[in-house]
């Protein structure tokens, strides 16, 4: 009974195993990036960048059809262009970076949808926006695994300046120039992870695997390492439970995964040990000292 419901779908079908491996890989790579986005008050940045990838991927699609390297490569370029463009506009004009990003990402979304429609059908468009977890091929799997590995490695390398640039940027500037470099590399990690997530969850939902587990983690841990562990764990659970749910109830799998992550988030808001609403309703007695 348990086996039938919890394991058999993956044992019996190869596409389910691929989907699980692909989403697990994303669950290791994206949430740690999301934790830093949240701590740096850039939570909406991920959303903006995810949209920015769309026109690039669409141009790749226009030129080479549903070819993974073309779409991923062009998406990567578009993401970097928007990130750099927003930074440049922020420096050269009175607009702040978030304002120029907000402007650029809706333009990107409109442009991307238009380009996909030039050649593709509505099904292609759905694939772009919401991904197709159950149709991951070997090339996509390889790409996602590579992105996750590189991303974790690079994050480990920039860890110290990234943390210090987040908590006390003025001090870091007074002892080192590493802060600016860490910020740029970190933005690159955001784009790269979203390109990986795009293969599976589409441009609109990829950011869900990055941000939902990260925001959830704040309710369960007090330090950055603990938050990353919680975020990855909740992303893994969401992937597994979401795929099972979509299999059992015949739901679209990408949205099912994100919905499970959303459910975990709502539960954490209600019950999380650090700042959950529960403790507002039933305050614990204060301590002696």
């Amino acid at each position, binding site marked *: 009974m348990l086996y039938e419901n919890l394991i058999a779908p993956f044992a019996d079908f190869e596409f389910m195993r691929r989907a699980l491996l692909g989403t697990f890989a994303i669950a290791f790579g994206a949430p740690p990036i999301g934790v830093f986005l949240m*701590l740096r008050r850039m939570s909406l940045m991920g959303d903006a960048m995810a949209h920015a990838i769309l026109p690039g991927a669409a141009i790749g699609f226009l030129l080479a059809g549903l070819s993974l390297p073309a779409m991923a490569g062009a998406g990567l370029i578009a993401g970097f262009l928007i990130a750099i463009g927003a930074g440049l506009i922020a420096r050269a004009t009175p607009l702040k970076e978030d304002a120029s990003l907000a402007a650029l990402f809706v333009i990107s979304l409109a442009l991307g949808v238009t380009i996909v429609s030039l050649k593709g059908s509505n099904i292609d468009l759905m694939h772009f926006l919401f991904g197709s977890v159950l149709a991951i091929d070997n090339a996509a799997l390889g790409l996602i695994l590579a992105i996750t590995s590189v991303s974790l490695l690079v994050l480990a*390398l*920039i860890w*110290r*300046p990234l*943390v*210090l640039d*987040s*908590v*006390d*940027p*003025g*001090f*870091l*500037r*007074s*002892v*080192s120039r*590493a802060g600016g470099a860490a910020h740029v590399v970190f933005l690159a990690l955001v784009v790269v992870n979203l390109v990986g997530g795009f293969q599976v969850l589409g441009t609109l939902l990829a950011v869900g695997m990055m941000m939902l587990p990260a925001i959830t983690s704040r309710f369960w*841990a*007090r*330090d*950055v390492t603990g*938050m990353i562990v919680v975020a990855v764990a909740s992303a893994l659970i969401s992937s597994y439970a979401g795929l099972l749910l979509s299999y059992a109830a015949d739901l679209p799998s990408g949205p099912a995964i994100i919905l499970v992550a959303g459910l975990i988030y709502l539960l954490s808001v209600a019950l999380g040990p650090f700042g959950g609403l529960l403790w507002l309703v039933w305050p614990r007695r204060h301590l002696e000292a």
Partner: protein
Amino acid sequence: MPELRFKNLTLGYERHPAVHHLEGAVKNGALVAVVGPNGAGKSTLFKGIVGTLKPLAGSIERHGIDGGGIAYLPQVPEIDRSFPIGVYDMVAMGLWRSRGVFGGIAGKDNHAIKAAIAAVGLTGFEHRAIGTLSGGQMQRMLFARLVAQDARLIVLDEPFAAIDARTSTELLALVQRWHAERRTVLAALHDVDLVRAVFPEALLLAREPVAWGPTHEVLTVENLNKARRMCEAFDESAEACAVAAE
């Protein structure tokens, strides 16, 4: 050999001078109080010394401080107090110059960090999140980080503002210890009595330098009144300064 030399230094914002034609030198091992009303240019001078503000004219020469660098405590640190990080890790960041991006924090460093935390009386707070510290504890932690930085030149911008008497007495003892260790210390202060009691040298600033030298000669009633009359507002229609550049 002088450690810091200001040559006709003018610092400011959008061409308006906030420190105007400062000339002089801070000697190696000096303990200097920088005194003056709000808007006198104390913080501006410190930003210039640290290097985050480029001079509008003139120059600052820094001799023999490259090794340990400058330990700088800004008036309003840009710290995100909601960030989940503990006191120990914050103090450990003081080792940045010797450990950099990748260097490990070894047993010896661990000892230095613990000693720095003990020096400011925060032992037992190592694992407390910075968001749970009081204002005084926060300032103690930042002083511990200055200790860990082990710099030859220490620049403190209003270190005792909004700090209670006991905390400021203990932190002041730390400043005197640095002076005894022949480090150069500059501190912006408002408490004239404190300056007279502890600081052998003072610079009275009111955009223009009013007086600079031994504290009892600088902090006279006449000089303080002169500094008080300084006008804070920039004159938007001011002419370009006529004093020759060099």
